[in-house]
């Protein structure tokens, strides 16, 4: 891998934060922590290192609106048009900009958000589109590109944090294309240590149950024996499978050690009430809590509940107000805690929905012209970029695709979007291919 580009990309973090880690790493070693060097864990016992690392840590929360929300009932309303649907629009804090009337909270903080109204992608089917918007690039033969969470886990993850570097909160065990995607390879060539730790709903109960049923002294004994045996096995066999299993175990162990962070009931009651009672809202609050405690990347999903081929308006009337409230409180809470400047918040699905209604009261898949929201780390605030025509049928200004989006995300987080990889057994590839431009209107 070639080093990150020396020239600063617009919006990239101007500080030497990436060097800070290396300097602090050496400082930790020079401070007599050589005994800990084998695992790096000792570094985090050094309070200077821990504090600086926490301060420099970037975060990303992806509100994954799987199934694909309607742009008309959210960020790009077309009231009064034949396909505009029954909900009106309301003015926002940005002059001349309107959101759906289902989003009064976000309308009130539009100056803190950025909206892209001109997403234009090519995949109309869920599985392929989920892959496209999770990996940021079409499939390419010869290797599997990691998903955003895995890429950020590798780029921003802490050395030996008990909190997993890629957390997926999703309470729904079964169901269609997203379930198929979840069963696939998230981390790609990065390997299993950057795959998500999945929690939420019943999954979290398993973690808590595991933590509660095994005594601490027993856990420690088991862990010592396991480390000895698996390290020996890995060394003797050079086994990729063993490494993956160990990585999975390490993540599980960290998760169990921080089980309370994943317990909705441990979150403050007032916060829980503010965010709302649904599982998506509660998990979004949990994401904030995890970021406060150092998690680099948290993805919040709720099955494929936005896929409203049937009862579009009957279900969006419930889903959109929940998302509106979640985005409002999440952005405000992060700002109040001084975390918004270091946390990128993204709300999007895998495409949009048709400007016309089908016979079943629904809107179908529509990648041609759709909207998403992103704000926080490395971005301006209060920007609405791109535009669609009067009926929302096509993009008429500044079309952006998934590669533009991922170039923006990486740049905003201070990660070289064009880093080149030349690894054994794989074609030469880049984090974002073809030097695709970031959405410069949004970059700070």
């Amino acid at each position, binding site marked *: 891998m070639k080093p990150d580009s020396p020239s600063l990309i617009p919006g990239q973090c101007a500080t030497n934060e990436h060097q800070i880690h290396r300097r602090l790493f050496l400082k930790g070693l020079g401070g007599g922590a050589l005994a800990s060097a084998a695992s790096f864990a000792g570094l985090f016992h050094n309070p200077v290192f821990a504090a600086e690392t926490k301060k420099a840590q970037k975060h990303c929360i992806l509100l994954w609106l799987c*199934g694909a929300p309607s742009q008309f009932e959210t960020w790009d309303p077309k009231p009064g048009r*034949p*396909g505009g649907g*029954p*909900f*009106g629009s309301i003015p926002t804090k940005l002059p001349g900009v309107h959101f759906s009337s289902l989003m009064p909270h976000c309308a009130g903080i539009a100056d803190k958000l950025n909206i892209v109204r001109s997403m234009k992608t090519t995949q109309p089917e869920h599985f392929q589109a989920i892959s496209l918007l999770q990996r940021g690039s079409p499939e390419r033969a010869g290797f599997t590109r990691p998903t955003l969470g895995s890429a950020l886990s590798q780029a921003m993850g802490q050395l030996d944090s008990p909190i997993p570097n890629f957390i997926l909160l999703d*309470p*729904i065990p*079964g*169901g*269609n294309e*997203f*379930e198929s995607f979840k069963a696939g390879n998230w981390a790609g060539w990065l390997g299993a240590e950057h795959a998500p730790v999945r929690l939420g709903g019943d999954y979290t109960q398993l973690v808590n149950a595991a933590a509660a049923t095994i005594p601490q002294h027993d856990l420690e004994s088991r862990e010592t024996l396991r480390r000895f045996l698996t390290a020996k096995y890995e060394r003797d066999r050079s086994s990729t499978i063993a490494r993956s299993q160990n990585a999975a175990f390490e993540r599980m162990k960290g998760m169990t050690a921080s089980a309370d962070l994943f317990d909705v009931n441990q979150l403050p009651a007032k916060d829980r009430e503010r965010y*709302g*009672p*649904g*599982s998506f*809202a*509660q998990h979004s609050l949990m994401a904030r809590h995890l970021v406060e405690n150092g998690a680099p990347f948290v993805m919040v999903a*709720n*099955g*494929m*509940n936005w*896929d*409203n*081929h*049937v*009862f579009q308006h*009957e*279900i969006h*009337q*419930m*889903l959109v*107000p*929940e998302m509106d409230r979640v985005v409002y409180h999440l952005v405000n809470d992060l700002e109040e805690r001084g975390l918004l400047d270091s946390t990128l918040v993204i709300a999007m699905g895998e495409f949009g929905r*048709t*400007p*016309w*209604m*089908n*016979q*079943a*009261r*629904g809107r179908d898949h529509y990648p041609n012209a759709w909207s998403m929201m992103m704000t926080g780390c490395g971005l301006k605030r209060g920007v609405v970029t791109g535009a669609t025509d009067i*009926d929302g*049928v096509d993009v008429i200004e500044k079309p952006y695709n998934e590669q533009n989006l991922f170039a923006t995300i990486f740049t905003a987080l201070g990660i070289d979007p064009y880093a080149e990889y030349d690894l054994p057994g794989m074609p030469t590839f880049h984090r974002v291919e073809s030097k695709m431009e970031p959405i410069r209107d949004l970059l700070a």
Partner: protein
Amino acid sequence: MKLTVAHDHQLPAGVLGLALSPDGTEAFAACADGTLQAVDPTTGKAEPFAEKHHSFASGCVLLPDGKTMISGGYDGWLLWHDVATKRCWRRVQAHQFWNWQLALSPDGRHLATVTGQYLPGGWKYEPAQETEPSVKVFDTLTGEPVAAFSHGPPVLSCCFSPDGLHLAAANMMGDIKIWKLPASADGQPVAQWNSPDFTSWGTTKTHHYCGGIYSLAFSPDGSTLLCCGMGPMGDPMAGNGKMTWQRWNWQKGERLDQIKDGQHGTGLMEAIAWHPDGQHFIMAGRQAQGTWNAALFSAADGSLVHSIDTKKRITHARFTADGKSLILAGANGQPAPKNGVWPPWGRLQVYQVES
């Protein structure tokens, strides 16, 4: 009994509400573009009313004198229109959210309107409690509210008993409530029960509720209540629940019968109506799978008598007073615009009813 199509008309936007003059020579359509249209059922000629709703127009009723039409909309407003001049002469805000459906008492004195937004009320997306009365009754002459009742939102359907002394309303969760009119001081229903057979909670793909009871009709003697909708689905986004009607003895909350196995397809049924002979009723809606989307059933044993496939979504079914014609209103799937022009997608069909 058999249905034969006589006329098939297009309207600019999907039809969500339908009213008929008693002789069936005039039809009134509430449309998804907010407009109200007076339609000649024979020629299909449509004349819009002067005022439209600020959202979908969801229902309309014609007062017995034939001079006044009242419409409701997803804007929560009720509009009184003069049929002759097409002018709106009274506006009343009934709800903060949608009017889902309207019902007119048999004597034309009272108008019932139901509302409610589905909002998350719990971890499993149980509907939150209502923030305003979900069922209201207005005096059609004065426009004044005369009763308000509590229900679990969203309340999708309502109807009056033939004697006008009872009002029924049903919601997404399959809760059915019946009140006596005039309303008692405590506003409590005289009967209420739940049927779980119309509501879905997604288990495979999505965790929330959908569906519900989309239409209600008392039997001509007032002793039973028909409900229709769609059966539960594992994937609520599939729209392929069983086409369902159930008949209840409402005074006992006891189910008497339901659509028979082997006689249904799948899809949401939105309309149910009695034939004036009292011996048959029709259920209609959208077909996801099967062979029909509108069917006549025998009142005697609930068996299917005759069915048709109109190839469109049906939102309302009304027999003319003489029972010789049936008007079906609804929508096609909305076509994409061509060169910036949106093709029509509303439908109004007239069927001859043959014994």
